[in-house]
């Protein structure tokens, strides 16, 4: 993992952000019961930008990206995705979710469907794509994540790394404009982390807007345009990876980085 950290960053050069914000969060607050999990989050993410969110566990980073496609609902403030504000209106919600792909820590592939069916299900039913077209599209993305030969198998027959790559392909089949990654490598054995990170790096190089919650600092250094550090429900510090890792300003980030580095 760490060899990628020292490499030059081809990703950043490939897809410069256009500057037009695709996700805007304005003073977002959220509580789980009495627990204040998101505090006044204000964040703007431009189209084509790659953002890595890091922070200690329980800092609210997963909750934050789950709010972006409303798997969790926020209680105060505004979240605007691609010009549409997130409300309880189901119709606009389904539209937003079609354009925002998500990759989960525990893969969440559909175990009763084959790999190919996992990838074609949403395009066929949600995008109303003809079956043959959806299958061609799915095979293209399965090739891109380098597992087309597994298309007829079931998720239970694949390794964790392979499953996570299928999950990425499944999201890409919806042709999303934004991809959210919720700790995509945390449930993987060490030898499988690299294959998933390589896939994500490839995706970053293609210019996809990405928001990743991850502890993979090598990945952050290589592809992120911006690193956002969260602690106790608030954004403590954010900036370019070089600045964040090279010259952290707050004590909390310094402490977090020292713990992460000690862990590695």
């Amino acid at each position: 993992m760490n060899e990628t950290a020292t490499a030059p960053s081809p990703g950043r050069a490939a897809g410069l952000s256009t500057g037009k914000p695709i996700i805007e969060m304005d003073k977002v607050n959220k509580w789980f019961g009495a627990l204040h999990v998101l505090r006044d989050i204000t964040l703007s993410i431009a189209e084509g930008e790659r953002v890595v969110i890091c922070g200690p566990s329980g800092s609210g980073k997963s909750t934050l990206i789950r709010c972006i496609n409303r798997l969790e609902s926020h209680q105060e403030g505004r979240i605007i995705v691609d010009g549409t504000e997130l409300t309880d209106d189901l119709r606009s919600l389904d539209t937003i979710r079609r354009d925002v792909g998500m990759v989960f820590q525990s893969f969440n592939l559909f175990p009763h469907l084959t790999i190919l069916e996992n990838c074609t299900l949403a395009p066929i039913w949600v995008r109303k794509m003809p079956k043959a077209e959806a299958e061609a599209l799915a095979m293209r993305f399965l090739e891109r994540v380098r597992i087309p030969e597994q298309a007829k198998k079931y998720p239970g027959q694949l390794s964790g790394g392979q499953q996570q790559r299928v999950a990425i392909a499944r999201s890409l089949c919806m042709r999303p404009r934004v991809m959210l990654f919720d700790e995509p490598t945390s449930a993987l054995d060490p030898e499988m982390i690299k294959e998933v990170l390589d896939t994500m790096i490839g995706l970053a190089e293609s210019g996809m807007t990405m928001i990743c919650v991850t502890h993979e600092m090598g990945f952050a250094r290589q592809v992120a345009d911006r690193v956002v550090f969260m602690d106790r429900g608030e954004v403590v510090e954010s900036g370019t990876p070089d600045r964040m890792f090279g010259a952290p300003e707050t004590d909390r980030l310094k402490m977090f980085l020292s713990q992460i580095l000690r862990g590695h």
Partner: protein
Amino acid sequence: MTDATTAPRVRPPASVVGPWAWLRANLFKSWLSTATTLVLVYLIGRGLLGLIDWGFVNAVWGVPYNAQGVPDTASCHAAKGQGACWAIIADKYRLILFGRFPFDEQWRPAVAVVLFIALYVFSAIKGVWRKGIDSPLLRTAAAIAVVTVLATNVVGWLGGILGLPTVLGDILHLIDIVARYASGVLLLFVWPAIGVWVVVLSAIFVLMAGGVYGLSPVAVDSWGGLPITLILATFGLAFAFPLSILVALGRRSTQMPAVKMICVLYVELIRGVPLISVLFMASVMFPLFMPPGVNVDKLLRAQIAVILFAAAYLAEVVRGGLQALPKGQAEAADALGMTYWQKTGLIVLPQALRLVIPPLVNTFIGFFKDTSLVLIIGLFDLLTMGKIALSDPPWQAFPTEVYIVLALIYISFCFAMSKYSRGLERELNQARGR
């Protein structure tokens, strides 16, 4: 480590596998297990021999009849204790199987039973439940036809209460018949298996009730025996199952608290009372609430009671499956932009129902046997007909034989269900590579 243990072995030694090894390991492992095996073999052998003696060697297969057709059961009485009196079955099997259906017309319930069994076998064949022609036009037409059938029947029924002019009634009847044929044919194209069910069940109804195609009409009161049991169980479970899924989904609804409350109330209320009392209410209380002159058929009332009762139980089984499904599955479906019904139909239910196949079949089997409770409201199902057959004076002394035959019939249906469910589980698990 020695070379012998590291050398590759092609197969395990013969002393570990094979029938002899199995016998040694399971039946003759120690002197105690050897003694137990021998004692059990002796007891089982004796019991089996006794059963063969009673059921076959010493059994009475037929008795003479006198001029009035009354059987002379002296030989049966003589053999009592040593041999079975199968003569009672030979004498009464048509009464037990088909009840009081007119004797010369009993080929009709016989064909109905064969159709039922054929329908079960058909439904168990792999792949028949696939959808047919994928055409929105046909789908819409089929839906319209089905809704028309339902609507004409409800309107016709209400019309009976309110006293609709007969001309309107005749027109309704005509529309109803046309819509019935149309829905059957259209469904055969759109969703063949459902179409087959509709057509076969309609055929069974026509066979039993008659009144068309030159079949003499037979009132429901004369139906009895195995067809009643199969009608109650098949319609009961076929309607209760989809209803139970809706109730289970409703009970888990977070968006609609009113729906949730109705579902909870329904389940708790129905589960809180015995089936007998629900049947009793359906047969005795329900007519009291109806306006005078309105008569809902007794079988239909019992059928609805069975459906409502089974649905409450099945709903809890289905809910168990919904709860066992990891939350991530629904979240993944949400994240892909699926609507509630897409998520439920494509992701949640296929997995949740698979998880609960064993308890589902358990409930199915339970209700198949519980249909025998309809004797309480004067419907003559299989078990009731057995009882009635035994009330004939010459045969009163031979209940064992009748109940053994009834048990064999029930066992064959229930065992088929459980066998099928185990096969289904194995197949589904294999497909998923587990």
